[in-house]
């Protein structure tokens, strides 16, 4: 397999943070041996889901080359991001990979008109030689998100609704005609009645603009709604990844099962299963320090080996599960095991 048929290829990426003073202190492995890839010619929406502190945002910083991996590599179109050395190469890379952030009101300065950001982006990335042509480029990007330059020109962020501002934020990302958009919790700050329009927008971008999207979220319900594939993160590991229907309809990893069960369903009739009591970790750091599977302390099916060595990746049909329950058998989970 040549490296160039992959748009993005993350190979065993690990990020470690050292916390504390020069002497002592502790090591936090925020991203731990993570591998996944996106295909070049088939745009898709890949979701990274997990609790806060699971490493989602660190991983996204890695993909934006805001951080360098401690170990492992991140390849974009076959090129190792660590080999990007000068500004013009970095600009080329930024042109292809664009972020969309969580809070639309923090993305834009309240003292600056939102269209100024759009023009800046168009001129900085040399998508247009002057302001007149830039206006056309900006308008095109805004049309893609269901807005127009007329609607947003000379408007400050507070004059637009949260949904509109977030759409402007997506439009800004689209100006440089990227191949990949990294959206970090793009809907969590948007009102419920406007949330679906943003979510639908990503779908439309994938189908019409052929843009791949990495959608980072803790909301499994919207993840199921839009994504093609999903990776479930826990304390730096991707514990289960694969097509979203497989992973969320028939989860294999005990953590995915717990996560899926915990999503409250908007159906009062199904209260009973959700009301089953669960145990929560008392303190924050304990799970990072744990050797072996990070879920061992909470796992109902824990075995001795889980506490000793990190579990390996097991390929089961189209998905990869990081769990000892599936190490001997591929396909069906081993029999005689409590479920």
């Amino acid at each position, binding site marked *: 397999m040549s490296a160039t048929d992959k748009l993005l290829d993350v190979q065993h990426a690990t990020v470690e943070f050292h916390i504390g003073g020069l002497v002592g202190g502790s090591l936090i492995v925020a991203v731990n041996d993570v591998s996944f890839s996106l295909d070049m010619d088939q745009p898709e929406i890949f979701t990274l889901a997990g609790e806060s502190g699971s490493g989602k945002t660190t991983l996204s910083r890695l993909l934006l080359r805001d951080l360098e991996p401690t170990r492992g590599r991140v390849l974009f179109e076959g090129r190792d991001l660590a080999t990007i050395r000068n500004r013009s190469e970095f600009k080329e890379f930024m042109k292809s990979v664009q972020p969309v952030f969580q809070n639309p009101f923090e993305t834009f300065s309240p003292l600056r008109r939102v269209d100024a950001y759009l023009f800046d982006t168009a001129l900085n990335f040399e998508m247009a030689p002057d302001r007149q042509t830039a206006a056309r480029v900006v308008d095109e990007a805004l049309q893609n998100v269901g807005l127009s330059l007329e609607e947003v020109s000379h408007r400050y962020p507070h004059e637009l609704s949260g949904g509109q501002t977030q759409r402007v934020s997506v439009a800004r990302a689209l100006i440089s005609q990227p191949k990949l958009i990294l959206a970090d919790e793009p809907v969590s700050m948007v009102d*419920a009645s406007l949330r679906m329009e943003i979510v639908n927008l990503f779908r439309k971008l994938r189908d019409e603009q052929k843009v791949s999207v990495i959608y980072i979220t803790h909301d499994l319900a919207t993840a199921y709604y839009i994504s093609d594939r999903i990776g479930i993160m826990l304390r730096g590991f991707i514990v289960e990844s694969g097509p979203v229907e497989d992973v969320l*309809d028939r989860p294999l990893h005990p953590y995915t099962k717990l996560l899926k069960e915990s999503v409250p369903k908007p159906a009062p009739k199904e209260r009973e299963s959700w009301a089953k009591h669960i145990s929560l970790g008392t303190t924050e750091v304990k799970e990072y320090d744990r050797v072996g599977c990070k879920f061992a302390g909470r796992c109902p099916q824990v075995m001795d080996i889980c506490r000793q060595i990190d579990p390996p990746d097991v390929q089961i049909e189209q998905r990869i599960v990081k769990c000892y329950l599936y190490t001997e058998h591929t396909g069906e989970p081993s029999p005689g095991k409590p479920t």
Partner: protein
Amino acid sequence: MALVSVQDICAYYRTEIYGISRTVRAVDGVSFELNPNEIYGVAGESSCGKTTLIKVISGNIKPPLKVYSGSVNYHFWSHDVDMLHISPEELRDNLRWKEISYVMQGSMSVLNPVRKIIKTFEDIVDTHEGIPDKKKFFEQAREHVNRLGLPTEVLTSYPHQLSGGMRQRVAIALATVFQPSLIIADEPTTALDVVVQRGVLQMIKDIQAMSNNTVLLVTHDMAVHANVADRVMIMYAGRIAEEAPTEIVFNAPLHPYTQHLIHSLPMIGERSNKVSLRGAPPNLANPPSGCRFHERCPYVMDICRTEVPELVTVRAGHRVACHLVKENSL
């Protein structure tokens, strides 16, 4: 008898800057009752007046917020209280924390970061009742947190040592030290993950079942209401759109806004196309005439633009404010 009856509250924020006066009608004519022994959910988008409503109910009214009309009456087993005409001293000494307590969204800002949890417990109890014996008090506090299913070591920890979920549960434990009649929980799980959210909400449910008090749960997350609340009120732009038992809100909503909220919720295992409402929530400084939802409503009629729909009872316990719905029609 109802524990709290709220009658026709109009609470506005009024500011005057450089001679320009601006009135934000955050809560406009809201009436409802809270019964003993129930979990009452309040749902709505940001800036629909949820938090203002809580401020009025808990007697925390400070300028620029002002209550222009209406009443909030509490009926405790021993005495009645008119919340809007109570002296600040009485509110502090007899009501706050003892009868009415409050669980907030960011538990990190509730707990003092440089003091151990037990010290925060001491501070609160000392202010309201006084602590004669600190050793004995530690035992009482230990008993209290253990009864709520928290380990004893949280008392001797600093807030930063605890996980987010544990901190929020400590905040709930603090809110329940005096066994209050009413616990107001304002977005208690919004900043938390689904697994932790489940644990925290289960704790709130358990406490309610244990002490048979009333919980006012405010959150924008409809799925939380579906799993926790007994009755739900849907607010839109400072007014009640619909109020009904949880089952009815989810299975037979009548107000177009409620219908949209319920039908646009994505669910695992179901991928039908979901859409957003057109437009945006209105600006309460200049709310639309008539029904405040009319600009976004798919069934808008002429009458909606001019006349404010009354909140009518369509069947026992189910109230809707919409021109499409007639009184006692079900």
